[in-house]
């Protein structure tokens, strides 16, 4: 069991390292280096930078060094919590993305919780009442959920809300709370606004989990031990919930590891449509402005948090699933 945790942890560390390399490549990709972009932005605001000053800046940022050394320096900066400057804001990247990163995770995690809360009972219902009207209805909604990319669903709901209910359904806070300090009332307001993005983000995943749960449970229900349990006179709910559902949960739980990155990924584009104050809109503006330090840091942070989330869900999985503990 310890070996398993260590193996998972090592994999997480390697993944984080791979993400840092990718991020570094992304930062380096656009033509011209950070200094020339920075100077351009200075010049467009009217200040002049001499050639000598530019060279001095390059030396200061180590841009005259070979790639590997630049990477090492950049990593060093990162480890000290220095993520560079965001050009358009002229502020440290750290200050800009802090809150937004937290909100991104809040949105993603609520989507996953909602997915579980819906998929589990609906999956059980669809299997136990196979081919009932409810089963067909959920299957149909499920297929739609898979077929409508989440940003389109967001667009449609925005349109419907705006046109027929005359309300704006975007954002994560009501106007009066937007710049207010954190309080219980603000958290409650956030909770209300979270439902819609969570539904939009979770729908596709929920649909898939319902299908998995239904198929697994149907397999289990046909097994002889279920018949035995019934024959012994156990109550029907107990027959189903106590054994087959537990057995069917296994693959259900093991998909969470891949589901988390998927939801985080989706939250970026859904946030853009719904105007949520997550890192999504920030990432887009940073990329369009070629502000690569900001964009790179966002990609890096999202990657690290995702890896961390996956690691935690692995630990939870191990706690739920005894067979996993035996492995490794």
């Amino acid at each position, binding site marked *: 069991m310890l070996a398993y945790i260590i193996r998972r942890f090592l994999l997480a560390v390697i993944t984080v390292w791979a993400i840092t390399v990718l991020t570094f490549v992304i930062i380096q990709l656009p033509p011209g280096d950070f200094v020339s972009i920075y100077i351009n932005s200075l010049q467009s605001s009217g200040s002049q930078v001499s050639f000598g000053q530019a060279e001095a800046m390059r030396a200061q940022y180590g841009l005259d060094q070979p790639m590997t050394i630049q990477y090492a320096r950049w990593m060093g900066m990162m480890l000290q919590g220095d993520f560079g400057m965001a050009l358009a804001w002229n502020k440290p990247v750290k200050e800009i993305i802090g809150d937004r990163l937290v909100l991104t995770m809040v949105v993603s995690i609520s989507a996953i919780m909602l997915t579980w809360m819906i998929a589990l009972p609906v999956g059980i219902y669809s299997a136990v009442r196979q081919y009932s009207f409810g089963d067909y209805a959920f299957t149909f909604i499920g297929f*739609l959920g898979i077929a*409508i*990319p989440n940003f389109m669903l967001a667009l449609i709901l925005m349109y419907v809300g705006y046109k027929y209910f005359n309300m704006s359904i975007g954002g994560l806070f009501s106007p009066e709370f937007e710049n207010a300090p954190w309080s219980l009332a603000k958290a409650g307001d956030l909770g209300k606004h979270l439902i819609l993005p969570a539904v939009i983000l979770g729908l596709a995943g929920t649909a898939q989990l319902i299908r998995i749960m239904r198929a697994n449970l149907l397999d289990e229900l046909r097994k002889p031990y279920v018949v035995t349990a019934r024959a012994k006179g156990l109550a029907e709910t107990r027959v189903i919930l106590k054994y087959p559902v537990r057995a069917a949960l296994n693959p259900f739980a093991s998909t969470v590891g891949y589901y988390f990155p998927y939801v985080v990924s*989706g939250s970026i584009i859904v946030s853009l449509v719904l105007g949520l104050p997550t890192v999504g809109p920030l990432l887009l503006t940073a*990329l369009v402005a070629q502000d690569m330090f900001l*964009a790179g840091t966002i990609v890096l942070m999202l990657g690290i948090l*995702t890896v961390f989330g996956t690691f935690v869900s692995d630990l939870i999985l191990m706690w739920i699933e005894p067979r996993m503990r035996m492995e490794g």
Partner: protein
Amino acid sequence: MATQPTSPDAEERISVATQWQLMWWRFRKHALAKVGAIIVILFYTAALLAEFLAYSDPGFVEAQRSLLPPHGIQWIDEGKFAPFVYGLKGTRDPQTFKRVYVVDPTQKYPIVFFGEGFEWTLFGRTVNRHLIAVEGAPAEEVLFLLGTDTLGRDLWSRLMYGTRVSLFIGLLGVMISLFLGILMGGISGYYGGPIDTLIQRVIEIIRSIPTIPLWMALGAALPREWSVNQVYFAITIIISLIAWTELARVTRGRFLALREEDYVMAAELAGCSQMRIIFRHMVPSFLSHIIAATTLAIAAMIIAETSLSFLGLGLRPPAISWGVLLQDGQNVQALAISPWLIFPIIPVVVIILSLNFLGDGLRDAADPYG
């Protein structure tokens, strides 16, 4: 069972049927999958015939016709079947300054099928035939089946061109993914051991990174001065570099399962070369699984391209794709005034649904002995 045998005759038919016949019989029973297959074929046919199905030049800009609502064809004229469209007059609302269009019943333009319209090239020859055309006026000025965008370009015609780009980016991307997936999955599953572990870890790493931010960053890094075609290929490659992992997983799984089969051992004992075992004996038996996985992968690719282009980081105008078209509908206020801009969502949903049904049916049929 593949099919229900009703007589000894039918039973005999099953026992001598080839694998592909069994699969076909099983697939045929899948009603939704059949519908899906037909729709997919129709969509790809439409994509091939984009110029013919369009009736206006997709790049034709006319500010006087901006944000025009869909304007349908009248099929019956004075009790006879004679399709025509009414002319339109554009004016400005004196209060809101919005452009409003009023139907002018005095002007009728007959619709003809296989008529003449804008010019396009077919195998190097210039042709001007279109499925629908208008007589008496250029189609660009009177026919707007799905309305127009902010620049007055006809949405129907642009949708036809966008369908081609979006569907073929899916196909092209899948080919690259398929190559990578079968190669890596095949190596992984056939050799096993440390190579397998390494490839599996790489796949795990790729899958644990959120894809959209990564795609966005790579898409944004493409040089602005690149031509439409260069961007097209670059985006295809970016998408497929991440999407191959699922196909590799399927391939590896099949290889692992097949390695233990008796007939593979028999082939080994008979002295077949490795290449012959892989391509003559193993690949045919899991080809169907790969085809099913590929169908589902095309849907994922189409979503990826649409998402990226929608954000403005994928294909860029003047390229036309579903995502590019949907970019116009990004803003709720714009949508509230001109809801037809969101129409390209419908083909996206229909094709993804169809590909999913088709893929599911193929996956069930892929294992006719199961």
